[in-house]
């Protein structure tokens, strides 16, 4: 019953924004005053706000039903797990007193060993589906997944394409996070977009041929319609119970992103950026499609989890079709090395002819890489990272919602969701992709001067961290960072929006400075975000969300490095980048809010934003600071990891000279070391930023001149745009031109040639007809005529002469007969 209620709640949260979209996009028809009314915006806020309430209710209900929370004296599994996580730490760190871990029960009889062994037991099924709670045994952690089918798209024999739901702890946390942040951003946007509430909006960034600005009606309601559509698509993506459905909503968030980036359609830069975003995403989706094709061909289903009806599995999902042995590796055929496809009970399924169903190992790698290619596109990872900075052409609330907190994180979400199917080679690719990306983007962020661009590169870099986390087997760390990042990055984007709004659409930081006094709320909330992302903390006293999640990633990377020493870069580069992150974030803050104003005009007109914009900032800053309180034994972490994949616990043993994936205990052991190093890096970065931009000790311009080569390379974004232009865009247009030419020059030429030949033949035919055929006919005619004329002579009319001819003729006939037919 709980499953059905959860499904209904989440589907309400999911579909309400769609309803909102339909209402808002036709707002011009129902409203008397569509250009001046905020009703559309409040509709959108109402929909997403109600969605948030539904999600929160669902989260609480799920927790209660799955026995997560304490019930009177009885401990829920969250408390138990908190104890376990706590006990894993080698010595009780000071930070255990910081924050408020749910419970401290030293004497709990669940210790790590016990729990671990039950988790990684050979018969443990990964996606154990919750049995109904009434009367049944109490649910434990890892047993709280609800999945089923919403709607069938098509059935072909045994193949079935459906829309499903898959509700586990990750789904619920994502739902709550997305709806909460979206609500805040919707509210903020009411203020930010208010200059669209006019019949004549002047777009100062769109110039006509004669140099004048574009004047157009305001598009306030259209903006909120698109936002609602986006929320619908994003929530659908999270609720999706199969990978095909993820793909559907993947494309839909993509098109919403396209519409929102290109919101100012008059600006060439905006429509270019929108196209670039969509097409680069489609490149990733091409890989995604390949993954889907392989999955479909070999598994015949896209479902994640098993669908249960009355405790019977009616539809088996992917996660239970590959079975992991105790060492964490997939069961494989001993002879061929192919991965065996198993039923829910772990027994190998067979084909019609009795042979084992199996999938070649390399194809499982293809699946993983393919799905990950989709994630690369969506999360703007190397080498498809170039679209995200350009996407900043969209209005700032869009950047906050779509291009930092939710959609771009969908790639990480999918990598996390699909984690049980990833093999070591895929994870290593994910780790290196994340590692390259986080470094590359951070270096560019150091030199960017547009406030939104800095944040955009920072987003790419942080997404790289998440990918790295997932890749080095820090599943929980990566997704933990996804949630914390969503809060502090959306906060910072909204702050930058507030600055841009306050400075009348000035985005260049060199024209700002000293805004702290002018806009104190924005400045302080921004500072909270900056501290959070930089991972600054006073261990044991206070730490903001980013400290916990980034530490977790760096610790996973260190454990991974310890297990696989060849991949040491996977630890050192993120560590170094932690310093760079602190540097560029504080650079941004000092540049904008600190020191003396650099452009008096901008400064004079700057003002703090109205409450409808600052209130969301305050709400988000509270979450950015404290959402991760308690680290790995705080509420957020425990909720998030409630249904974590089972093979994380014990890690995965290397096959041959393959990769060893660290167990949770290995990661926890490195926590203090990694945390200390990361903190050192962050503090150094902060100090350098302060010295360069917070004080006047160093002449930054002079430094720039001396490092002109590096600086130029970085400001040109490592020349990726030029490279892709030369490698792909121009060749594509060449091939296109060739195809178009080929049609005209070859096919049509053949055709025209054939036509001409036909005409020539016909002409010759005419000549032949007129001269030869007609000539022959005429010849016969004239011959007949002349014969007739000559015979005229014999036609005398004298009877005796005729008899004479007859007799002669008969005699001649007989003569011929006797000579030709003798006898």
């Amino acid at each position, binding site marked *: 019953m709980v499953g059905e209620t959860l499904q209904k709640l989440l589907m309400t949260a999911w579909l309400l924004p769609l309803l909102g979209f339909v209402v808002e996009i036709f707002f011009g028809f129902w409203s008397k005053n569509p250009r001046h009314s905020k009703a559309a915006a409040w509709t959108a806020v109402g929909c997403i706000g109600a969605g948030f309430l539904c999600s929160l209710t669902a989260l609480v209900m799920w927790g209660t039903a799955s026995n997560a929370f304490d019930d009177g004296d009885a401990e829920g599994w969250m408390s138990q797990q908190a104890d376990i996580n706590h006990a894993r730490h080698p010595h009780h760190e000071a930070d255990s007193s910081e924050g408020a871990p749910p419970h401290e029960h030293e004497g709990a009889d669940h210790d790590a060993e016990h729990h671990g062994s039950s988790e990684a037991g050979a018969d443990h099924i990964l996606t154990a589906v919750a049995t109904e709670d009434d009367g049944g045994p109490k649910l434990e952690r890892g047993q709280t997944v609800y999945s089923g089918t919403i709607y*069938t*798209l*098509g*059935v*072909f*024999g*045994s*193949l079935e*394409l459906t829309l499903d739901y898959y509700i586990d702890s990750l789904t619920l946390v994502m739902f709550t996070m997305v709806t909460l942040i979206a609500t805040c951003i919707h509210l903020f946007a009411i203020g930010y977009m208010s200059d669209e509430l006019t019949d004549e909006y002047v777009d100062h960034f*769109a*110039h*006509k*041929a004669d140099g004048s600005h*574009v004047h*157009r009606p305001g598009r306030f309601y259209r903006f909120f319609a698109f936002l609602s559509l986006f929320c619908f698509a994003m929530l659908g993506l999270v609720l999706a119970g199969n990978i095909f459905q993820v*793909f*559907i*909503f993947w*494309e*839909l968030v993509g*098109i919403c992103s*396209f519409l929102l980036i*290109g919101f100012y*359609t*008059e*600006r*060439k830069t905006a*429509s*270019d950026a*929108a*196209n670039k975003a*969509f*097409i680069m995403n*489609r*490149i990733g*989706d*091409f890989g995604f*499609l*390949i993954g*889907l*094709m*392989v999955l*479909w*061909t070999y598994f015949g289903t896209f479902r994640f989890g098993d669908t249960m009806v009355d405790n019977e599995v009616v539809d088996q999902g992917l996660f239970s079709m590959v079975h992991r042995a105790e060492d964490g590796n997939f069961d494989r055929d001993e002879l061929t090395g192919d991965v065996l496809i198993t039923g829910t009970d772990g027994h190998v399924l067979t084909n019609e002819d009795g042979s084992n169903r199996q999938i070649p190992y390399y194809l499982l790698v293809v699946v993983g890489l393919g799905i990950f290619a989709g994630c690369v596109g969506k999360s703007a990872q190397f080498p498809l990272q170039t679209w995200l900075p350009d996407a900043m052409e969209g209005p700032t609330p869009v950047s906050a919602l779509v291009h930092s907190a939710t959609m771009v994180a969908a790639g990480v979400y999918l990598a996390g969701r699909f984690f049980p199917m990833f093999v070591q080679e895929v994870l290593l690719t994910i780790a290196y992709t994340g590692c390259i990306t986080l470094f590359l983007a951070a270096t560019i962020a150091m030199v960017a001067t547009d406030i939104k661009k800095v944040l955009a590169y920072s987003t790419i870099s942080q997404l790289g961290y998440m990918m790295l986390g997932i890749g080095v087997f820090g599943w929980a760390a990566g997704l933990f960072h996804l949630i914390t990042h969503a809060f502090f990055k959306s906060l910072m984007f909204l702050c930058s929006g507030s600055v841009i709004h306050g400075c009348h659409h000035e985005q260049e930081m060199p024209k700002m400075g000293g805004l702290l006094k002018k806009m104190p709320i924005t400045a302080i909330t921004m500072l909270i975000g900056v501290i959070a992302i930089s991972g600054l903390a006073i261990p044991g006293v206070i730490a903001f969300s980013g400290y916990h999640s980034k530490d977790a990633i760096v610790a996973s990377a260190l454990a991974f490095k310890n297990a696989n020493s060849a991949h040491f870069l996977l630890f050192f580069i993120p560590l170094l980048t932690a310093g760079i992150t602190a540097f560029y974030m504080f650079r941004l803050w000092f540049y904008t809010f600190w020191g003396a104003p650099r452009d008096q005009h901008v400064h004079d007109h700057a003002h703090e934003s109205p409450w409808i914009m600052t209130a969301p900032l305050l709400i988000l800053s509270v979450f950015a600071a404290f959402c991760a309180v308690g680290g790995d034994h705080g509420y957020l972490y425990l909720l998030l990891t409630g249904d974590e994949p089972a093979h994380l616990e014990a890690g995965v043993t290397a096959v041959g000279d393959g990769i060893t994936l660290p167990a949770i205990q290995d990661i926890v052991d490195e926590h203090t070391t990694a945390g200390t190093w990361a903190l050192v890096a962050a503090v150094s970065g902060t100090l350098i930023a302060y010295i360069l931009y917070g004080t006047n000790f160093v002449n930054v311009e002079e430094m720039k001149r001396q490092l002109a080569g590096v600086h130029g390379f970085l400001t040109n974004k490592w020349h990726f745009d030029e490279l892709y232009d030369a490698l792909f865009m121009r060749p*594509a*247009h060449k*091939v*296109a*031109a*060739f*195809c*178009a*030419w080929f*049609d005209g020059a070859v*096919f*049509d030429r053949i*055709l025209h040639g054939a*036509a001409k030949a036909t005409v020539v033949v016909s002409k010759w035919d005419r000549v032949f007809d007129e001269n030869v055929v007609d000539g022959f006919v005429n010849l016969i005619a004239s011959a007949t005529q002349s014969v007739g004329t000559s015979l005229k002579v014999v036609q005398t009319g004298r009877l005796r002469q005729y008899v004479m001819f007859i007799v002669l003729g008969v005699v001649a006939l007989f003569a011929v007969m006797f000579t030709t037919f003798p006898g």
Partner: protein
Amino acid sequence: MNPDVLLSAIIFLPALGALLLAFLDSRAVVQIRAIALGFTVATFVLTLMLWGQFKYAEAGMQMLVVKEWIPTWNVYYRLGVDGISLPLVILTSFVTMLAAVASWSINKQHKGYFILFLLLETGMLGVFLSLDFFLFFVFWEVMLLPMYFLIGVWGGPRREYAAIKFFLYTLIGGVLMLIAMLMFYFNSGGTTDSFNLIELAKAASGTSTTLTTTLSPNLQITAFVLLFIGFAIKLPAFPFHTWLPDAHVEAPTPISMILAGVLLKLGGYGIIRVAFPLCPYGAYYAAYALVGIGVFSIIYGAFAALAQTDFKRLVAYSSVSHMGYVLIGLGVWKIGEATGKTINPDMWLMGINGAMFQMIAHGVSSAGMFFMVGVIYDRVHHRDLNKFGGLMGRMPLYSGLAAGLFFAGLGLPGLCGFIGEIFVVLSAWNYSPTLAIIAASGVILTAGYILWAMQRVYMGTEYKGPHSEDITPINGRELTVAGVLLAFAIILGVFPGILFDMMQSSTGALVDSMQLGYEKAAATLNELQAMR
């Protein structure tokens, strides 16, 4: 309604309308339009009645009509409908009806135009409903003449060239079909069922009670190639596609809608109704070529579309690209060398269903795209992609609808284009991973040419071409056509089950009988081998 009457009424009602128009004064434009529209609406209603009487569970032909026509040559007037033809019949009457509304923009010789228009509809419906090979062929040719005149008289500047090109291409296809038809007639003994498409199909799979002999496996290959070329011209598939851009560019908007919306589907329908069931062995033999041509058409069409500067030509090439999916879906039939059994027949079934869906979906989206091009062409009288821009501000409603229809063409989930493409692509890996990957790469190119075209036309600061003063917001008539098409694109995209439910019995039966046919042919070949 009695099926005998209903099927014939569907086919001949438009012709009746044409006859009626012939008696009208050619200056009575309003009446001519109203009557023509009335007849197309009535035909559409009749096809909906047909849908109402259609039994989903039945796999075979329904509502059969058999009447003697030319008994000396064993030609019969045979009609019937099944899950494969029904969606196409409804699509035809639907698109024709909308095209009739779009025909308001025709501004000369209205009477002649609408007479030919209605005759064209009779021809198209006749092809979809006839079950006699000869009758099929007759309707196929009947369709040709009105189309020739509609392009050649009411078309653009190069209309004569385009019309003749269209005519000759299709005629060649018709001739090849004629040869194949005679092959079947004489090889099956020239009996009363020798033109009967159902019995010929049964004969191929060895289940016919009336026809004992049919083509040998090797002749099947010849017949299939002949038929396939005939139908591939219509589809159109690379390399038989060059008539299409010219015909589209020159044809008036409503005719382009019909051309893309219905006529191209005749090619796909011909393959699935005639070429496949009649020559199952030939179909399997040529399957790789089919899929290969399909894949190549997708990529080639998309690249060619990317290079176009004429808006309508771009949409025309997008048709070449999109119809490639139809060939792939039909062709992904894989047989195990050792067992002689189909590997994963459900995948092929999915491919066929996807191909059928793609035909319907393309009928809706491409008709919509051509109409949207027509709307702007009617205002500014040019189609140069580099001389548009800023229409989003000038005609917001029009631009919004156009964006929706172009997204449907782009294969966006939730719209009709997605389902057909993705189902076909998913079914393709089982057949050939390489071809499947190439086909899947089409998604990038498709996004490229459609978004780039939209950017050049709808976005930007201002309109850059001539006749700027004539740009007026979309009117009620245009809004109706575009709105209805977009609504259908959404309905089909969200509820694809509407079509799949209609088709699944028939497509399932097709897959089964094709497999039987292949096994029969393979057995024959083995016997021959043994005799040698």
